[in-house]
């Protein structure tokens, strides 16, 4: 399990990095934290001819709160830092979900941008991004564009990134007023990919009526997926046990689990309802 040979480039600026990627295109991979790419290279499942190492690029790892409440996270911010960062702490679901991402040693090295670009449908953070309605800034030597997280994930391990593009920044809007969030998953062991996981956001008004809801699942299909019907059904309710059960039931119908070595699709579908209900209770309580 030794990686195949590659040429290694270690740009110091984002412009330099993008120029290299434009030059080498699909032959090259960006190396962020490497916590998914390097295992794939060790197994020789991935054999990129060129690695463009982002670890010495200056200015790609900032975590900032903007005036309108948007949280901006540079793609190279390491997961352990996001987990502990006070600014990122305004979105407690980030730390809550990151705690389930592998183990501290992996989070010390792995980056949020790398995790999202890897686009593993079993991964926690893509689902969190959907629940938070995040937008991703994609940059290339040609310029920059941004898109909603929901448009970024196309298929397992496949994103909307063009061969010369990099996910440069994650932009998470302020939560709606009165919002509460929760991330919950069921995995075989701590740190494993979820058999089913959910990121939930619900907001309540002063009268205790739900004004907004977003449920997003991981391990629920070929990409992280929103459950729009279940989410919509919650708005206008008071999230009574019956409301929650109804939404969980819808979520169970909306997910499209593919099954894995660890879980049958039927069990995964069942779990979707279980985690949805539990996360909704928790998020609603936190919204109070």
């Amino acid at each position, binding site marked *: *399990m*030794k*990686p*195949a*040979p590659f040429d290694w480039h270690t740009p110091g600026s984002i412009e330099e990095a993008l120029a290299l990627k434009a030059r080498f295109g699909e032959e090259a991979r960006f190396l962020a934290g490497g916590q998914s790419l390097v295992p794939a290279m060790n*197994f*020789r499942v991935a054999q990129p001819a060129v690695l463009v190492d982002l670890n010495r690029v200056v200015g790609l790892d900032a975590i900032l709160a903007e005036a309108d409440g948007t949280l901006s996270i540079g793609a190279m911010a390491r997961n352990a830092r996001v987990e502990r960062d006070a600014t990122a702490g305004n979105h407690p679901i980030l730390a809550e979900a990151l705690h389930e991402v592998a183990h501290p040693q992996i989070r010390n090295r792995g980056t949020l941008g790398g995790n999202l670009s890897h686009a593993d449908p079993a991964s926690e953070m893509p689902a969190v991004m959907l629940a938070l309605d995040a937008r991703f800034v994609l940059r290339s030597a040609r310029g920059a564009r941004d898109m909603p997280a929901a448009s970024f994930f196309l298929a397992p391990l496949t994103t909307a990134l063009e061969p010369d593009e990099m996910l440069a920044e994650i932009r998470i809007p302020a939560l709606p007023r009165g919002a509460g969030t929760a991330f919950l998953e*069921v995995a*075989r*062991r*701590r*740190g*494993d*990919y979820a*058999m089913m996981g959910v990121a939930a956001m619900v907001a309540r008004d002063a009268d205790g009526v739900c004004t907004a809801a977003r449920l997003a699942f991981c391990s629920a299909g070929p990409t992280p997926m929103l459950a729009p019907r279940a989410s919509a059904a919650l708005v206008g309710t008071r999230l009574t046990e019956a409301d929650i059960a109804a939404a969980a039931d819808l979520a169970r119908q909306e997910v499209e689990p593919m099954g894995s*070595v*660890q*879980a*049958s699709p*039927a*069990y*995964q579908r*069942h*779990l979707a309802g*279980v985690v949805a209900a539990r996360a909704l209770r928790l998020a609603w309580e936190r919204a109070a």
Partner: protein
Amino acid sequence: METRHIGRPLTRNEDPRLLTGRALFVDDVELPGMLHAAFLRSPHAHAEIRAVDTAAAKARAGVLAVITADDLGEYWKPGPLLVPPPPIAGMTFRQRCQVPLAKGVVRHLGEPIVMVVAESRYVAEDALGDIVVDYAPLPVVGDLEAAVAPASPRVHPDLPDNIAAEVVQRKGDYAAARARAAHVIRRRFLYDRGASIPMETRGIVAAWDGKADRLTVWDTTQAPVVIRNGLAAMLGLSERQVRVIAPFIGGGFGPKMMMFYPEEVLVPWIALRLERPVKWIEDRLEHFTATTHERGQIHEAEIALDAEGRVLGVRDEFLMDTGAYNPYGLTVPLNSQCTLLNCYDIAAYESRFRAVYTNRTLVTPYRGAGRQHGVFVMERLMDAAARVVGLDRIEIRRRNLIPPDRFPYRNEIIFQDFAPLTYDSGNYAPILGKALDAIGYDRFVAEEQPKARAEGRHLGLGLVMYVEGTGIGPYEGAKVRVQSSGKVTLATGIGTQGQGHFTAFAQVVAEQLGVDPRDVEVTTGDTDQFDWGVGTFASRGAVVAGAATHGAATAVRAKILKAAAEHFECAEADLVLEEGKVSIAGVPERHITLGALAQLANPLRGAVKPGTEPGLEATSYFGPEMGATAAGAHAMVIELDAETMRPTILRYVVVHDCGTVLNPLILAGQVQGGVAQGIGNAFFEQLAWTEDGQLLNASLADYLIPTALDVPRMEVLHTETPSPLNPLGTKGAGEGGAIPVGALFAQAIEDALDLPARGIEVTEIPLSPSRLWEIAHGDG
């Protein structure tokens, strides 16, 4: 027996080296000019090899050798049958052993086809990518029951079918027992394949020293002496010319006892040919298909009881997946067959098994080595019987325990050590009693569980019993010597993989010689130090090598006393041997150190009396007439999340009887580690195969071994029934922790979900939340 060192919780002598990163493991061996081997392995479970093109690999810079089966010439031959079958009347046994490199056909995933040797492992792996093999896939034999159907494709086409062995053994008259039974209960049980996953994979370094005319091999084997002897024979060298060192080994658990793995045959051979040191370290991907597996069995079992719940007889028939080859003979299925009888007084038993060839990795013993299957079947039958008879699950067990006055207890059938299965000693009721008290059985049943159920919580208790045949022969040896420094050396032929032999054996020596166990330097697994022995397996290290150590130390003690008596011109009976010196009783100022005595015994001038030997040294061998039978009970309380089917272990109790305890600290570690593997086997670990024989979870991300959060704190209690079979009274302890856990999980989960009330039973291992959810919803 009053002891000074035996039975003390001494911390380990070997730890400082391991804790500071200074212990030598095989991959730590670095030699000038060393080359690195890598193997091209079959991506198919079963295929014809039509052609192998190695031209591009040979042409790659940095590649020194590319070897196929044809290149091996006369050296290519199937491996030896490691464990011949015991003589059992009427049995069928068809041996097919593994080959060094596949020729014409591959029979399991990961079977090696080409060996590449290069300047680095990186380049060697590059060269593997250059090799082109033309495969024609063949039908895959995977499912055990399909494998024995007449129309099944065959793993070995020269055999009439896929049956590797068939054995029937009987005790008493089962048919008669069944005829007078009040209840007959029949069940089908599954126990699926798993892997041992030591944290260190296998590895081997071989170096030929042309000037010394010697081959040195560092090997992660559990049996260095056997490897040395075999290699010498295969390579046409004298045994003197081959030194095998099993240094620190990162866990063994059985599969490092396989002999010979293809790599063990090939790496020394190529090192000799190239006259350069060659290293091969198995990577984790290789490990999943190239290191042996265990566990796969399907049982159809029947228990016959009288109206009071006394077992009149048991009948069992099982299929055992032996993989593509069977160099290990019948060890695993015989263990299953024998251990099924467990700790119960069962007059009639009839058992038939068939070992079946499949297109899967070889099966050889892995911690428990078939014993857990037998225990699973028996304990599950007991639980089912308790319900049918209307008895508490504890009461039915109590009624059937072998009473203490029946030992040695003869089960008559032949065990893996070729001897009729006999339990040397035991006292089982106190084990059960201690377990009940420690887990709080009565309170759980009367209060805790009803209260939890009323609150909608699913608490379940499991309590099962087991026996473990340990410490089998044929023999081990040990050499003890007092050095002129006064420190003592001990060498044995077994290998060590973390069992604390450096400490426990030092305690055995210190007990006899009156020295500090810290001053006893133990060497295991170096054939230059000691080259008689068999290996570390079947929980026999502490028992067999421990007894040999005791024998050697006792002989040295006698030499010390004799020499000191001559020195002081007194009677041996007047001497006291302690604190590293011999003194005259009551006159402590008249003493001589062991070091000075060792020098006197090894004079440079003067005459040595005829008939005496120099030095204070002795070698001793021990071979038990049969294995010693340990026993125990495990109990646990779990809480099951009935929505997710994830269990949480709230309490875990082990009561273990392994005879005399040499070191309770080390013993507790062995038991706890065994339980952890048992939990893995019961609830986490399962090799997932496709129909065409691909392995879906060949990584540690997908094959789940338990973490610190999955293994609970355990309370480990002991009873001590010494074995009469060896002078120390020890029984083995290495495997007991792992053996009953499957049965324990099944019972506790049934109890938590009250499944039998709905007519559902748990009859398979391993379980998982997903599978349990299916079972609990009637998809058993």
